[in-house]
Structure formats: structure tokens, C-alpha cells
């Protein structure tokens, strides 16, 4: 990267995230002015959006080519008091916590205490949510049965479609006007609501154009004062670009990136949507203008790369909005999950990988930034060299890009009733969530702690953490005569808690639709304009609500432990097991040893355990899939954890699989940490027994040591692993190329790393099977290779 990019990158990496009160202040000023009382709710939201963009600070960083910050400066992160009004204590925690902190200065604290909190307390949607759900919901939430995504952040997980790259705000305004014209006030009872919503969309389009106009003016002002003639010219170009986009469709690659960036800023300023927003299939969306500019000679591959690098840095300048409480537990990271998709197929089903796909991979490799996240979509038709190039980057060990199966994503989406053309234009966003880009609101509503339900079943409905009767009385497990009786009781409990969650979802969705419509996001998402309906109110072409299952490995191994040891082999009685769990295995070492090492485990291609996993998947899926949400769409399942498996684990005592109290659960669809001892092919076989095509995404982690991937041949074999997994309809796989720290930890806690493969010398082996000396030698070697 050149000096300019290096400086901007350093600025981004070194900036200490801080809280900015700017947005909260402007928002509150608008609502206190009384203007909101005179108009409909959507129009008030649009006016507030406009007010913020009219008054917020304009920031053009030194040397940058793509301009625009959400806060007053890089990594200064706004709050959204209409969603979550932070207390003084929240601010203290955000400021001082060890991980994912945001510095909060005294002035910010004072404004919050004197202006923001007094106005928003009780008005925020968070307050309204907790006041509207019923007591069973609150108790289950507090017990760690599930989390709630919409209590601090807005519905998101959505991605920009290709139409954003070919339309300007004026085009959208025209569509809005046409839609207003076609409202049928004689027959449509929702006519007025539609008109207000469309008016609101129109205002937000105007607001974004004006916001860009302010950047244009600022750029020209800086240009006038600039002494360096080259920079002067750049600033003049930026001034011109910001006049043209996002008002009109972009005409060059530079304009396209700036155009999208204004849209991105609009979305994340309007609300703090989950997973920010996303340019989606960047190598597809940008390709025509990239080709055009190269052909015309207005860009070279090198200058195009520089523009993309500038674009990359803009994402890294916007940390995920501050999260507190359970939401911080479930997603404790600065990453805001903007996941750029590369590869896949075109809308006609043909291979979509192009020259720009490879350029983007180069950018990912060189930038090595936390944000944006990136992934490659691999279809049957993707060239092997594309997968190889991605693995080349993965092996350098920073976890990007992740690898997705386009063919399975398409199957998942079409199974849900989407057209195949729409499905092909989709991909994955956030962590692993499948969706149709630009046309779907696919909302993750919360994580669900499946193993906790077993704990409650084993206690006849009582949560042992509190002694409260949290679940149903499904019987004293000591009296169960068979595994089937136990599994029936577990199924009843699971259905009971899923019902509580879905009831809550149906309340919370309506609160968002009524209180916090999102007209800007709506105008971007098809068919909100056509339907005259908000994104939060079912305006999109497709509307899905997900409940993300967590702890698949832990629940499977726990059920296997019970079935195998109690009901089939009489190794232990239920009474003994329950006593041992209560005791956290303190006086039950040999029993724990049996549960850990002599019991079938998920992740070893062992049908005994894997069939139990499939049973769990069936009841989870049956409890959720196809049940209506309030937006004309349906509830769906996916299986991913972000960081919640640690929090969920903390809420559970010892489990029958030998896991100790409060230890993390298994993550994603991965086996329990260290339980898979038969190598990666066995893991992939086990995991492929999940019916991925009935989910909207699953997450699989695989660990390899950097040494293993350091030669061509091994890398090729990892490519074969990926292709084989995808042949079996696996949805996603990501690789941890492991660090020295991990290897050291593996020495201290070999039981947790029983599946770690390392390259020794011309061959590979399980790390824990090596003698200490050899382990040390490998650790030493890896250090030599680390950078």
C-alpha cells in the first residue's frame, strides 16, 4: 500500500474508540423542538434524520479519497438514545471495561445526564420493550434461556442490492412519487399510513443529498486552501463527486464507492442496525464501472486498488455501536459485521468470479483490517484458483475471508419460498446469515440456549441457578424409564420456551414497526417503496425472523452421555448423574472421565452421537420454522453463536457431557471443544449430517496450525476439504490458523485441544500426541514464522 493509505490505515487502527454525543444531542434537539408533534411518526423520524445530517460535523481526513464519517471523527461512535438510553453507570462501564471499551469524557457524561436521559427515559424502545413483554419472557431472559437482539439495536442484517449501484436518490424519489400517485384512497384502509411512510422516505432521500452537498462544499473549501496541486485536484474531484452522488446514479468507480458510502452512513446514522449495512456482492456491483474506467484509462488497476483500500478504511473507522448488558455478552466486539461478498453466481446461475474478485482479495490481504469482514462464495462453478487464492490469504492467519457455499445458500433461500433469481443475487451477511440482497429484511431476533433447556428438564422445570420454577413440570427425571421419556420432556420444555420467545418477538416487532420506522432503510430495500410500507413493518419483498440455536455440540454430547451411560449400558444411574452435576463433578472424577472419554461424541462421524444431534435439530426446527412473524413472513432457524456461547455457558451448571459449571458451550455447529478426535474429515462428515438447507446459516470453525498450511500441497488438500464439505451441502467453514499462544495453552490444557493438527516435518500430527520436547520445538518454530 502507498504512503497515503498507510497513514489512513494507521489513523484508523490507532484511534481509541470514543463515545460521541453529537447524534444524541441533535436528535434530542429535534424532538424537543416540538416539530415531531406536528407530523406523523414516520415523517418525524425522517425529519430527525434530516436534522442530524444537516447539523453534524463534516469530517474529511487528510489524504482520503472516499469521505464521510458517522461520528465527528474516525471511531467516534454515536449513541441512539431513542433505542437505548444509557445510564451514567453504563457510561462508566463502557469507559472502563477491559474489553471493547469506549472512552467517555466528562462533557459527554454531563450532556447525557442533563439533556439526553431526562428526555428519553421511558421513551426509548428498550424501556418500552421491557414494559411490554410478559413476566415469563423476562424471567427466561434473565435466566439466560435466550437473548433479545432488538433491545439495544435496530433490526438489520440486511444488505444493499445491485439496484443501489444503478440508482441515485433522485431516481428513488421519482419512484416514491409514483407510488404516492398510485395509492387508492377509496379502497385501501392503509392509504394514509402509506402516504406518510412514502413522504418520510422522500425526505430522507433529500436529507442524504444535502448531506453529500455539505461534503462537496467542505471539499471545495479545502481545495481552495490546499497548496499541494495534486491534493488540490483530488479535493476538487471529491467536491464534484459529492455533488453528483448519491443524488444521481454513479458514473465512475470512484463515484460508485462514494455513493455507496453515503448510503452506508445514512443507514447507520438513522438507526444502529445490527450488522451495520453492507455493499453486498461488491465484485458484481462494482464490476461494470471498474471495467469501464479501466477501458477508458481513467483508472488503472493500481489506482482502482487505492480507491478500494480507501473504501476499506472507512468501514474500520466505524466500530459497532456500544453495547451493554446481555447484548454486550452475546456480541462483544468492535466489529459491526459488514460482510463483503466476493464470488458466487450471477442471476442467470453462471459463475460470477471476475478480475475484480481477485483484486478485492488482494485488498483484503493487504489491508488486514478488523473491518469490513469478508467472505468468498464458492459455487460448484467457481474456479479452483479462486478458492486457492482465498486459502492463500486465510493461511496467513487472521481468519479472513470466510468460505461459503453458494449452492447451499441458494437452496436455503428457495426452500423458504424465494425466487431462484432473487436467491442467486443473495449471499451471506453478518456472521453466516443467508439472505436475498436488497430485497429481504432478515432479522435475527436472539440466541437460544438449547443446553440450558436440558438442565431445566433434568430439574423438572426448576432453574438450579435460582431455584425458581422456570419451565414446565415435565416429571422427575429419576422416574423416567427410558431415554425416550427424557427426550419427550426435553422437547416439551423446548417448545415451551420457544413459544415464549416467539410471543415476545411478535410483540417487539410491532413496537419497532409503530415507534421506530426506518424510512431511509426502507427506500433502499425493495419493495418498500412499491408497498408504501416500512422496512420494520413488512415492507420488504421478503421478511424473515430468525432464532439462532446455540450449543448444538454440548446438547448432543449431553444427550448421548445420558442415553449411552444410563439407559443403555447402566454405567451410572440418573440419581448418581444428577448428584454429580449438582456437585460439579468435584467428587466424581472417574464418572467425569467416563463421560469425557468413553462416551460417543458429536464431531467424530459416529452415527450414535450424530443421530441424536439430528433429533435435536428436528425438534428445534419444528418448534420454529414456518411460524408466522408479524410482517407477513416466517420464523426460521440458524445455528451460530458470535460470543454468546461464553455467556450462555456461564448461566449453566455442569452438564452430562462432563463440561464443568459455567464453562463455555460449544460454538456454532462445531463439536464441543476437544471432543472431536478423529480429524477434520470426521468433523465435516458429522456436521454435514445437519440439514443445512433447512437453516438460514450455520457456522463451523476449523483450526489448523500455520505450519500445516505452509506448503502448496497441504493447501490444496484444505481446498479439497472445503469442496467435499460443500458437496455435502455444508453452509460455511472458517479456518483458525493457530497462534503460538494457542499452542502454549494447548500444552497446559491438552483436553481442550485434542483435535489440533500441527505440521511436524514433512508430515502432520495431533499436537497433543507429541512429546513435550517436540511440542516446544514446534512452538519455537512457529514463533520464528510469526509476523
Amino acid at each position, binding site marked *: 500500500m502507498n504512503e497515503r493509505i498507510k497513514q489512513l490505515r494507521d489513523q484508523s487502527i490507532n484511534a481509541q474508540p470514543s463515545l460521541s454525543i453529537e447524534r444524541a444531542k441533535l436528535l434530542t434537539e429535534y424532538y424537543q423542538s416540538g416539530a415531531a408533534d406536528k407530523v406523523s411518526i414516520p415523517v418525524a423520524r425522517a425529519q430527525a434524520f434530516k436534522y442530524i445530517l444537516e447539523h453534524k460535523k463534516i469530517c474529511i481526513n487528510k489524504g482520503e479519497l472516499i469521505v464521510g464519517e458517522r461520528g465527528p471523527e474516525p471511531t467516534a461512535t454515536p449513541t441512539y438514545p431513542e433505542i437505548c438510553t444509557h445510564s451514567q453507570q453504563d457510561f462508566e462501564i463502557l469507559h472502563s471495561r477491559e474489553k471493547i471499551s469506549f472512552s467517555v469524557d466528562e462533557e459527554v457524561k454531563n450532556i447525557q445526564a442533563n439533556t439526553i436521559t431526562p428526555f428519553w427515559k421511558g421513551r426509548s424502545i428498550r424501556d418500552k420493550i421491557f414494559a411490554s413483554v410478559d413476566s415469563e419472557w423476562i424471567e427466561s431472559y434473565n435466566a439466560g434461556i435466550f437473548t433479545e437482539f432488538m433491545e439495544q439495536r435496530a433490526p438489520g442484517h440486511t444488505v444493499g442490492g445491485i439496484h443501489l449501484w444503478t440508482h441515485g436518490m433522485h431516481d428513488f424519489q421519482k419512484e416514491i412519487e409514483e407510488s404516492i400517485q398510485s395509492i387508492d384512497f377509496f379502497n385501501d384502509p392503509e392509504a394514509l399510513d402509506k402516504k406518510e411512510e412514502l413522504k418520510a422516505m422522500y425526505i430522507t432521500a433529500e436529507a442524504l443529498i444535502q448531506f453529500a452537498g455539505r461534503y462537496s462544499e467542505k471539499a471545495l473549501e479545502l481545495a481552495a486552501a490546499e497548496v499541494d496541486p495534486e491534493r488540490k485536484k483530488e479535493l476538487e474531484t471529491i467536491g464534484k463527486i459529492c455533488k453528483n452522488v448519491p443524488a444521481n446514479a454513479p458514473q465512475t468507480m470512484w463515484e460508485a464507492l462514494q455513493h455507496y458510502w453515503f448510503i452506508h452512513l445514512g443507514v447507520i446514522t438513522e438507526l444502529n442496525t445490527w450488522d451495520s449495512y453492507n455493499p453486498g456482492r461488491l465484485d458484481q456491483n462494482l464490476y461494470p464501472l471498474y471495467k469501464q474506467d479501466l477501458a477508458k484509462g481513467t483508472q488503472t488497476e493500481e489506482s482502482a486498488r487505492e480507491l478500494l483500500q480507501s473504501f476499506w478504511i472507512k468501514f474500520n473507522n466505524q466500530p459497532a455501536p456500544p453495547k451493554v448488558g446481555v447484548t454486550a455478552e452475546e456480541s462483544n466486539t468492535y466489529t459491526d459485521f459488514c460482510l463483503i461478498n466476493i464470488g458466487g453466481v450471477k442471476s442467470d446461475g453462471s459463475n460470477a468470479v471476475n478480475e475484480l474478485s481477485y483484486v478485492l482479495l488482494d485488498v483484503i490481504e493487504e489491508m488486514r483490517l478488523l473491518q469490513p469482514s469478508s467472505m468468498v462464495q464458492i459455487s460448484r462453478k467457481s474456479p479452483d484458483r479462486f478458492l486457492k487464492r482465498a486459502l492463500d490469504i486465510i493461511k496467513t492467519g487472521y481468519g479472513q475471508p470466510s468460505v461459503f457455499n453458494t449452492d447451499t445458500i441458494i437452496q436455503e433461500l428457495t426452500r423458504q419460498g424465494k425466487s431462484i433469481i432473487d436467491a442467486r443475487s443473495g449471499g451471506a451477511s453478518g456472521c453466516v446469515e443467508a439472505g436475498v440482497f436488497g430485497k429481504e429484511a432478515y432479522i435475527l431476533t436472539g440466541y437460544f440456549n438449547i443446553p440450558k433447556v436440558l438442565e431445566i428438564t433434568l430439574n423438572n422445570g426448576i432453574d438450579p441457578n435460582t431455584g425458581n420454577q422456570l419451565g414446565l413440570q415435565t416429571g422427575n427425571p429419576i422416574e423416567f424409564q427410558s431415554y425416550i421419556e427424557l427426550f419427550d420432556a426435553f422437547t416439551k420444555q423446548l417448545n415451551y420456551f420457544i413459544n415464549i420467545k416467539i410471543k415476545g418477538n411478535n410483540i417487539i416487532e410491532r413496537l419497532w414497526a409503530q415507534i421506530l420506522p426506518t424510512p431511509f432503510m426502507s427506500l433502499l430495500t425493495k419493495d418498500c417503496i412499491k408497498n408504501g410500507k416500512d422496512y420494520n413493518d413488512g415492507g420488504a419483498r421478503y421478511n424473515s425472523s430468525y432464532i439462532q440455536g446455540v450449543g448444538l455440540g454440548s446438547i448432543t454430547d449431553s444427550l448421548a452421555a445420558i442415553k449411552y451411560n444410563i439407559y443403555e449400558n447402566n454405567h451410572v444411574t440418573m440419581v448418581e448423574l444428577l448428584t454429580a452435576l449438582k456437585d460439579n463433578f468435584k467428587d466424581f472424577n472417574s464418572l467425569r472421565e467416563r463421560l469425557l472419554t468413553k462416551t460417543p461424541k458429536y464431531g467424530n462421524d459416529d452415527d450414535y452421537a450424530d443421530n441424536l444431534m439430528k433429533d435435536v435439530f428436528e425438534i428445534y426446527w419444528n418448534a420454529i420454522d414456518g411460524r408466522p412473524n408479524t410482517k407477513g413472513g416466517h420464523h426460521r432457524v440458524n445455528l451460530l453463536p458470535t460470543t454468546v456461547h461464553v455467556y450462555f455457558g456461564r448461566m449453566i451448571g455442569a452438564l452430562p457431557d462432563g463440561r464443568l459449571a459455567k464453562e463455555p458451550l460449544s460454538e456454532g455447529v462445531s463439536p464441543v471443544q476437544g471432543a472431536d478426535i478423529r480429524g477434520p474429515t470426521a468433523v465435516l462428515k458429522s456436521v454435514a449430517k445437519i440439514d443445512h438447507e433447512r437453516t438460514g446459516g450455520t457456522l463451523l470453525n476449523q483450526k489448523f496450525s500455520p505450519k500445516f498450511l505452509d506448503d502448496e500441497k497441504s493447501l490444496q*488438500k484444505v481446498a*479439497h476439504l472445503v469442496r467435499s464439505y460443500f458437496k455435502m451441502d455444508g453452509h460455511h467453514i472458517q479456518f483458525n490458523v493457530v497462534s503460538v499462544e494457542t499452542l502454549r495453552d494447548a500444552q497446559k490444557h*491438552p483436553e481442550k485441544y485434542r483435535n489440533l493438527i500441527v505440521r511436524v516435518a514433512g508430515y502432520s500430527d495431533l499436537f497433543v500426541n507429541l512429546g*513435550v520436547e517436540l511440542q516446544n520445538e514446534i512452538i519455537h518454530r512457529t514463533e520464528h514464522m510469526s509476523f
Partner: protein
Amino acid sequence: MIPQSGMIFDIKRFAVHDGPGIRTTVFFKGCPLNCWWCHNPESQQLEPELILKPNSEVSEVVGREISLNELMEEVRRDIIFFDESGGGVTISGGEPLMQSEFLISILEECNKENIHTTLDTTGYSSLNIMRQILGKVNLHLYDLKFIDDEKHLEYTGVSNKLILENLKFLDSRKIPVIIRIPIIPGVTDSESNIKEISEFISASLNSIRNVNILPYNRLGEGKYPRLNRSYRFTHQLTTPSDKELNKIKNQLETYGLEVQVGG
């Protein structure tokens, strides 16, 4: 009656250095050789024996009888990976030819199911057995340590006569073979030994031209005390450096051989 079971000590899936593609390697127990540097000393004795678990005081049994059905079931589990990668089954050991009848029954079953077979062998067996497996093995990984028979006897416990004869036999039948030379510092890595091997290949073999050189690794050393046996080398051997390996590679290449470091 062909025996439907045999003695193995491990089955390893995702073996990536024992032939082409992703493979499942079956490790036979029992070996007529007794190489000083053997990194699988638990493979030498045909019968099951006790070995201490790594870094522990607890012992476990190494070696078990497995039926052809059970073995094939395990092998078939990774067929999807074999197909994708051009992999298959590798029979290693120990010396698989020691349980030749069981070996043949596995090979025949794999041939029937179109699963690629690789035999990792010392080549120490009767010519009659070599004839029996002829055409059933898709690729031989064939160890060659010394041409000098005295040294061979000293360091492996057996003469290399059969080994060289069998190799010539395979060569004459144009069977795919990769010769593997273990590079043991101070033992097999001398210029003269590499020269003798090169000359043997050039002069006595017509079709075989592929050679892998396998650098000594210290993996096996720790297993000897765990088996309550002593390691024959009294001094500490070091893993050959890339430079040393390249030198040997270059020397072999001057004879027109296709050489690769590692398997």
C-alpha cells in the same frame, strides 16, 4: 480361506502425506525390520502390547484385531474426500506384507470398489508375495535405505537382498513406485550412500524415477521409553536442515531422478 481379519495399530483419516490426495491410512502391526530410527516402534511387534499414554503414567494397549468389514466400513467413510482429492487408502505399518493375506483381501475389496490403493512398504518379503499383490496396488511407496548390505543389516536387522530384488521385479512390470529414502543424519545421509542409491536406480531400474526424501523426525524418540525400550542411538540426532536436504536432492537429481522432499 482368506483371513477376514488382521492386526493393526491405528487408522488415521485425513492423512495427507502418504500418497496422493486425502487418504485414510491403515497402520498394520508387525515388522520384520528393526530400524534404529523407526518412528513407529509400536508397530514392530505383531502382537498387541502396552504403551504409556503421551506425557502420562497410564498405559494403554496398542494394537487390535480388526475385521475386513469393520476396516472397509471405516475406509468408506471418507470416500467423498477421496473422490474430490484423488485420494484413497494407504496401507502402512509396520510392514503390511507381513500379513499378506489380510492385505490382499483389503486390496481386492478396494479394487472392487474403485478406491485408490497405496502400499507403504519396506519391500521385505518373498517374491511370491510380491507377485500376489501385483496389479492390486495402484502406487507403492517403497523404502530404500542402503545399497551396502552390511550397513543394511546393521541398522535394520535384515539383509537388503530381497528388497532390491523385489524392487527390480516391480520395475520390470512397470508398476508405479515412489522410492522413499529416510534421511537419517550420520547414517543414510552420506554422499556415498546417496551416490550408491542413485547409481542403483539408474543402472538397475528402467521405469522407476520418482524419489522422495524423508527427513528424520524426532517423533518416534519419545515412544521408546513409553514402550519400555531403549532408543538405539545414544547421541541426539537433529532434524536435517533445508540446506542439507536440498544438497541431497540436487545430488539425486544429477542422475535424472524426480525428487521431492517429504511425502
